[in-house]
């Protein structure tokens, strides 16, 4: 049975990428797979849009990248969090918790 997929909330992709990379260095496809797994395949992510987002994060200095070898021995670009990226992840997690709490309260109010 197919799970129902939800569109990604505007602006949350960056946060998801940071979270995914929080687990360690990985290539772009790895990031896509990890988000997919963590979200239990409930999120509808256009996989291609990961890349501009990754470049943007790199431009901001939250993520760094270098070329390396993948498991199947192919050339791939590997991304990892920088120290600043790790701090940013903390900030985003906190913001997200507060947002969920607030939105939840509003939605529960009859």
């Amino acid at each position, binding site marked *: 049975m197919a799970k129902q997929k939800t569109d990604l909330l505007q602006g949350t992709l960056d946060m998801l990428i940071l979270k995914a990379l929080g687990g360690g260095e990985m290539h772009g496809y790895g990031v896509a797979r990890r988000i997919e797994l963590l979200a239990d395949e409930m999120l509808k992510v*256009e*996989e291609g*849009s990961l*890349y501009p987002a990754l470049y943007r994060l790199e*431009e901001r200095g939250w993520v760094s990248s270098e070329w390396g070898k*993948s498991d199947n021995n*192919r*050339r*791939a670009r590997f991304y990892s969090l920088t120290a600043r990226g790790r701090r940013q992840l903390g900030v985003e997690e906190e913001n997200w918790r507060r947002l969920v709490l607030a939105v939840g309260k509003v939605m529960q109010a009859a």
Partner: protein
Amino acid sequence: MWLKGLYRRVGALLRSESIHEEIDEEVRFHLDMRAEENVRAGMTPAQARREAERRFGNRTRIREQGYDVRGGRWLEAFWRDCRYGARSLRKSPGFTLVAVLTLALGTGATTAIFSVMNAVMFRPLPYPEAERLVYVGQQYRGGLAGSGEPKFLFWREQSRSFEALACYSGFGGAGGNLAGGAEAEQVRGVRVSEDFFRALGVYPALGRAFTREEDAPGGARVAILSDGLWRRSFGGDEGLIGKTVTLNGAPTTVVGVMPPQFNFSSGPDLFVPMRARQGANVDPNAEVIGRLKPGVSLEQAEAELKGIAERYRAAFPRHMAEGETVGVKPYQDFFTEGVAKYLWIVLGAVIFLLLIACANVANLQLARAAARRREIAMRMALGAAGGRIVRQLLTEGLMLALAGGAAGLFLAAWIIQLLTALIPSGLLPRFARVGMDWRVLAFTLAAAVVTGLLFGTAPAWQALKVDVNASLKENTGKGASARGRLRGALVVAEVALSLVLLVGAGLLVRTFTNLLGVTPGFDPRNVLTFQVDLNGERYDTAAEAAAFYRDALERIGRLPGVEAAAITNKLPLDWQFNMPVVFPDNPEQAQTVQVRLASPDYFRAMRIDLRRGRAFDGADDRAAPPVVVVNEAFARRFYEGKDALARQFSVGRGVDDPVRQVIGVVGDVKQQGLDRPAPPMVFVPVQQASDKLLTTVRTFTSTHFVVRTTVEPTSLAPAVKQQLAALDAALPPSRFSTMEEIAARSIASQRFNMWLLGSFAALGLLLAAVGIYGVMSYTVAQRTREIGIRMALGAQAGTVLKLVTRQGMTLTFMGIAIGVAASLALTRLMEGLLYGVAATDPATFAANALLLTAVSLAACYLPARRATRVNPLIALRYD
């Protein structure tokens, strides 16, 4: 962070291709991985591929987005701007040519002047680690002066701040007559202490430096030659080291030859040991240089020396004046201090020229922008952001400026050649080799970029104000009046800038003509001069010297074409030589005046006017009563204008000079330059000089012959040489010149300044005229329809003429008003360059304002006359 971003962008610039390739590779990897995953989940390869691509989304868009984020867009836009700019500049070759030439003129002239400045002030002195070289001098009232040998010895013994502390002096028998080479010749020498070469960090290329023993009093007679002298007179013979030459009659061993590129002070021919000592008759103004130990700062060295100076005062209280102490400054400053302010003024002037050029190009750009208004409006209507258009126009401006800068470099190279040939010797320090280096190139690049932004901003700013609708419909949009104001402002600025240049140049012209009008106090026409160094044992006593002078003058006097011949120890308009004079009624209070030893015919040969009494003659010899002649400045200063005749004084201290009686008063003669007042001066008959007086005078000065002729003076030089050779072949005469040449040389810098600033002003005026002409032509073209209507309604040609001219002249007068105010503030800075004219001279200001008005009237008149020829019928149809 910002820098890192820039770095990445510049990086992107250099690998534009690879950005796309990298993204493509990443995307390919992603799709392959997803497809493999799908195959594992049971799809056919084709299905797997399709599914992977579906999940990935729009590849093209993502590729471009990624490219954008990674700086590719910026780069691409830049290239596109450049290509577009190049195309648009190519489309109007006339504009491009004029703009590039104008900018080349501005940047070229500025670059040339900067490279002069660079050679003097910014390039390190030609010695290794020159930043550690300092000048040490006795200091009072802020100035530093040569400290003399005794103080140097004391400092050297006590100070610990220096790797080497050395003393040098061009006086005291440093140079003289050298024999042993190709032929006997006069050479210029410098006496240097043992550590001199170590201080400079340059050693002889052949042989060795002086030893401590050679530098001690009574040391062996040795010399180190310059490369020039070695090649010129000894044919570059390497075997010369250790051989003996004859210097001032004494055998002297050559121990070294300096390297060819070695350059010091006025470029002496040889060096001899200084043998500095305490006591009398040493050079009281010998200069001291030091090389600081690594890590020792100038301030530390100065603090140490100030302490040492106080100990010196305690030891020799009579040898240090009230308020005197020691000062240290970078050795480079020693050369550049005098000229730095001058160079800044010239650079300021040439930057004004550059600004005028900028204003002109900005004006051209505006005119072109007006023509391109529709194009720009079209692009904005099609969705180009304002920022894009501005960037486009700025890029174009920068391209023009860089092209102008590149062309300017060629022009600068040419101007530098011209300047090197024209700069009078002595205006710049000798070590200054004017040329281009990385500093000059960096300066030109910076100047080009700044000018590009300056004149690129005007049209860019205007472009933002374009009213898209109005511009597309018609060409008389609202932007026109704002644009008109900006163009007007540029004209006002040009006029103001060029007035400042004109006034500056005008003041220098006045200075120069004033100097030409100054009577030097002698008649420089038809006077031949040359120099003989009477060193050596044959002329040790005053009697021997006097005999030589008498014989030499007699021989020269007999030559046909000679009217009178005489000697002196210093020529007018040359360096000074002063000594104290002591008045019998007040022996403690010595006064320092210019002292000359002259032969009887000196006043006749120079045609110096005798005002009172008589000149000395051959009868005033050793047996006769001691006499002296003074000049009017001396009489004014010491006798307050009362009769100087029969007054008494003696010359010098401790030189055995008897009390002399004043027998005559002569007119004043300029000494330090035509622009300086004549100093008090006394003339002692050379045949009455004591041995000691002659020795002292000879230590610091030479013997100059002056020969008044009835024929072309230089034509007598060979005959004079012959006569002197017959008298004593070991005393070669040198530096033949005419007094007219010497007088011209004394105002050479003022002449050069006048031409330099005059050329800037002329170019500035030309550019300003072109600017005014351009603006008025444009205005007339724009107002064709209006003028046509006026004429159709019966306006006369005169009315139209006035209408157009008035507009241009209003701008001119505004510019003149601002220019006058700016000149009043700025010409004050050049007071030191002026003579006989105030920096705010009303006549100069008025004349140049008038000149500018006339030129600008002419520049307005041509377009205005064109306006009167407008045919109303055609004008009304004109779109």
